[in-house]
């Protein structure tokens, strides 16, 4: 079995006024260490796909296996632990906690995992070193540039050494230089640590880069019900 397995996944969003079918009987498998780029037009279900992998959304029917365990069978606490320890999320909007300084932002997943204070401090220092923001650890996100904020978000995503990185348009709010830098960070992680990456984008640069790296491309339109 592959590392991530979607088996007959169906999902429909239901609001008061409408029903939006996203997936019907979707089967998809992703191997460990794969770099998967999901692309395609807006509103087709790319973010939804990532949210299924993170356990944030549950499908109406079907099963999602990650590393052999059925996400839908996990209890709420187990899903939270799974999300905390095995998933690293990077968003287009960075989604930092603006009341926290850089250090505390990076520490959030570590705090949630129940790590000891001393270990947290050490790990945070290590991560800030890695992204080159050690000297700004007491600053608040609003004083950082977009690129710096996204690097903080990256450090936060990898804090717990996840197996899977879910990146939802990570370069969407970055200029090309910063975008390239971030992609390189993610790529390095993918190759050095064999971390599985699902990266949503319509950014041509990523498509090129990942394409050249021989990674897999998924056109969302080929798997979604949204037309």
């Amino acid at each position, binding site marked *: 079995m592959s590392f991530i397995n979607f088996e007959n996944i169906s999902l429909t969003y239901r609001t008061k006024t409408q029903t939006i079918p996203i997936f019907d009987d979707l089967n998809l498998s992703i191997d460990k260490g794969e770099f998967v780029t999901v692309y395609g037009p807006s509103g087709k279900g790319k973010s939804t796909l990532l949210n299924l992998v993170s356990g944030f959304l549950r499908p109406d029917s079907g099963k999602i296996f990650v590393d052999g365990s059925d996400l839908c069978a996990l209890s709420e606490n187990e899903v939270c632990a799974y999300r905390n*320890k095995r*998933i690293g999320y990077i968003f287009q909007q960075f989604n930092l906690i603006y009341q926290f300084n850089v250090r505390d932002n990076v520490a959030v997943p570590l*705090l949630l995992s129940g790590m000891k204070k001393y270990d947290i401090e050490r790990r945070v220092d290590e991560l800030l070193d890695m992204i080159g923001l050690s000297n700004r650890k007491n600053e608040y996100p609003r004083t950082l540039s977009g690129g710096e904020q996204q690097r903080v978000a990256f450090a936060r995503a990898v804090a717990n050494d996840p197996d899977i990185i879910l990146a939802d348009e990570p370069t969407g709010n970055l200029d090309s230089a910063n975008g390239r830098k971030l992609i390189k960070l993610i790529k390095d992680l993918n190759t050095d640590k064999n971390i599985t990456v699902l990266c949503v984008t319509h950014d041509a640069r990523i498509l090129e880069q990942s394409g050249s790296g021989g990674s897999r491309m998924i056109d969302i339109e080929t798997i979604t019900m949204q037309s």
Partner: protein
Amino acid sequence: MISVKYILALWKRKTLGQIIGFAYMVPLLLFVLCLLMTLLLPLTSDMIFYGNASYEYCYKMPCNIFSVYDRKTVPNETAYSLLHDKDRNALLYSDSAVVYTVNDKAMPDTSELRLYVARKDADLSGTIFTEENFTGKGTPYSNKYDGTSQLYVTHNTLKHLNADVGDTVITEYDSFAHISEDHAIRSVIAGTLKPEYDGSNNRSLAEYDKYSDFSALLTVDEELFFEIAGNDLSEIMTVVFSDEKSDFTDGEAQNITEEIRTDKMETLENTLRERRFVTKVVLRFAFSILVMAAALEMEYGFTRRRCEHDMTVFSMLGMRRSSVRRTIAVQVLIRFLISVAAAVLLCRYVYFRFISDMYCEPLLLLFIAASFVIAGTAYTVIRSLIKSLKGV
């Protein structure tokens, strides 16, 4: 852990925003607090007053002063003409002879009487009866009436002076120029004033109580009769004197004190048990709880909206739903508790001091505030429990 960090960070980074965000709760809570206070205050403060009152001291005096009521109002023309012209604000009685009609009976001529009644601090212009007036504290009063003036002050004044009933104090007072060259008189603190609570402006003198916010100066010199002016002369309450009772032993005096107390307490307890009163209390409490629940629900909505982004991020990073719920609930609770505290302070120091000008019993206020805190906390806890059972 992270919830605490987050809430602390919110308060640290956006203190003003936090406070403005829930300021609306304060007037709501103040309103229900005052609603309950005005209902319960007369009875409870009476109960506390009579529970603590001691009448013994009266009986040890050659005269017995049971109760003196003071109609706290600006005197009308008649009454005013009886007052000392020098200081109309101070409502000083002159030492000239005055005969009052009380309860259709003419009071004896009090030509020898030197009686000074000062009004509440705020009403005294130029002759404010304050700590500064007291230039010194004399030796404790030796039980026997020796012609010293008697002085009735408020509990607050007593505390300021660090004095007790029975102490001799020297009062310096501008308007005493005509009776004493050094503008000062010696007097014995004979009692404190019963608090005002029901708007009728009645204050009993000569009953020793610890709860009062009324500053009055009443001095009696040599004669046993005195009177206090009111808005309407026919409404002047009597001062009851009785020479007969002046030779009570300590034991007898104590018994009478007990009798009076039991009698008053019984009347009060009966009022407390009245169906109409109980219904009123229950209804007002129920209303208060409804208002609190509405305020809390509103605050839940606001808090959830305000923290939605951060809570979603926390969930994405693996925070449990129960922790998210707790983070919200704790924030709501903190704001609620701060609002209760603010409402209590406003009630005590603004409403009861400046708006209603009523005596405010601190114990009752604390009791009601505590019941609010318990009700509000219980509400949030039960709410969280229900939500977690529903798995929302």
